[in-house]
């Protein structure tokens, strides 16, 4: 469990899709699975319990806090 608090400063390299899909500041999330060999993350987030897959590289742009 965690909460998104913001994005890294080099946000220009961050795909906009992350925000468009609804990974916004103040959103709570849970990492449910990760594919083997540091594969993509399977994340459940928000009130709607949306599910999304993203790679570690993309996830690194998101600053989170433990809950």
């Amino acid at each position, binding site marked *: 469990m965690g909460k998104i608090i913001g994005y890294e400063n080099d946000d220009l390299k961050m795909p906009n899709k992350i*925000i468009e*899909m609804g990974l916004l500041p103040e959103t709570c999330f849970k990492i449910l*699975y990760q594919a083997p060999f540091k594969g993509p993350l399977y994340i459940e987030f928000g009130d709607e319990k*949306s*599910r999304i*897959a993203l*790679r570690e590289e993309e996830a690194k742009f998101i600053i989170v806090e433990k809950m």
Partner: protein
Amino acid sequence: MQKSTDYKQILLVGNPNVGKSTVFNLLCNKTQKTGNYAGVTVASYSGIYEYKGESVEVVDLPGSYSVYPTSEDEAIFSKFLIDEQQKYAGVVYILEALSIKRGLLLFQQIQDLGIPILLVVNQIDQATRRGITIDIEALSKELGVTVLQSNAKKNEGIEELREEIFQNKFSASEQISFEVPLEQKGLVFKILAETKESNQYKIWTLLSSETYFGNLESVKDQMNNDEVKCLVPKRLQTQETIRRYQNIDKIISKVLFKKPQFKELLTEKLDKVLVHKYWGYLIFGAILLLIFQSVFFLAEYPMNWISDFFLWLSAFANTNLPEGPINSLLANGIIPGLGGIMVFAPQIGILLYFLYLLEDSGYMARVIFLMDRFLRPFGLNGKSIVPLVSGTACAIPAIMSTRNIENVKERLITILVTPFMTCSARLPVYSIIIGLIIPNKYFIGISYKAIALMAMYFLGFFTSLMASLILKKIIKSKGKSFLVMDLPSYKMPLFGYDFKLTLGKVWEFITGAGKIIFLVSIIIWFFSYLGPKQKPDEFVATNVKLDHSYLAKMGKSIEPAIAPLGYDWKMGVGILTSFVAREVFVGTMSTLYSLDDEAPEGKIIDKMRNDKKPNGEPIYSFATGVSILFFYAFAMQCVSTLAVVYRETKSWKWTMAQLLGMSGLAYFASLIVYQFLK
């Protein structure tokens, strides 16, 4: 796109996976694939329906999350939405009850562009079942549009939608839900004043999109000043998205009520196994195995019926028609040619049906999740797995399904290597050659033939990976590779609906391939029935033995090139004709061997088996057979695929590179294999 003024044109718009294509199908009574996986709607389809004497043309646009495109799919979407604005009556926006928040982002962007819009909330029963209530009236008031409810998969709400479209209940919003931030306001108003444009949000989208879209030519001139150049479009987009979501949160709190705890039980339980680090892969492997087993064993019975039917038909034509060219053309040319290809319809149908069910259920997105890490080292994206797997049916839809791969390089590599996958057109060739050269023996219950066929599938997959690895080094990278993908809830696939789609596709294959094979068999028959004059006093070409026909002359003239691969002139003719399409090989062989015989009865495969060289050795020896298999595994023999590759890459360079690269590889691989096994 039709530009007739007799039609009222409307656009269907929404996020991927919201049931847009299902609504489209119900509206237009036309079969078109819908899928529970982003990117099934690969092009904008259009269909027409009549309601109360009015013809309405519905354009189904690819699903998108915002008006700023990140992939080719979304670029088509934005371009159409903005460029064609004058032509359509309005937008029907489909919102899925379970993901209203995400859906409203694009909805409000479209509304702010001043486009007339009508809202449909789909799959409301899914939400109710999870304890979520949506206040439709409040939603309608908050957004200032007509809101309809529908359950597209059960055909509910479609009549109402037709009625609202008939009554033109599209409304263009007066106010804008996104205020241009103060820092850019001055600039936006400056541009507004200098152009005839009146919509400030439209100017904003121009400032904040990285690639220019829209047809505001006059505005484009204004876009070159320094003030615009120092803007960072991406940052503007981020700003907009975050602000919009704040606004949307407020709306949602007024229209959506839910029990505090709700869970996606089915999806949660299934994903515990289906994306598991061991079980997930095992199950994916098992599913693939099941599909391929069915393709070969289930299809055997209908294939025998079809084959027997064409044999009977050919014999019937032979005995009942008067002797002469017409008899020969039908009994030895057209009927065996068509029969040779129809026989593969069951295999193609079974393969497609499985792929449709997998897409429909939501499983494909999990496969992408599982495969991404393993495809990346080859310069591919997890999303490439869908074209690669679809490529086992046909490379044409597979190549079109690459449009949702955001990264240009990954998309290009996927397009270039997908034709290596064993498509269903290769199956006829493989089946017949494997039947000829592999003995009818079993290894712990699995037939040698099935193993050989599996090996061919592996060869195709392995070659695509190797080719990707090479292309990864050659192609210059543009943009960063990323994977941000929605994982939809699992849904029970619509078995009957998918079956209908499969039948449609199989029919397309039969008529499409049928037409080509019909023509090719006539041409082959013509050139094989006739030959150069034998006696100097004859002026016209006459009926001759096959060995002396024009066709034999052509085949024999390329023999020096193909003899080192172990082929005779008949195979040469087969290979030449199958540059149109691979499956033509079997039709050509059927025609050739029917012509060669006195009686057309008997299966082609037996005739090929009994074909002997002058020294008594079979023509289809093991070495020759393997050489043919390698040739068909690698060669680019499909005009339609080349056309699609050109259309998708817009590059002659890559299309020709693919044609020459694949065919060159085919020639040398077959040469080496034959010389080694001989």
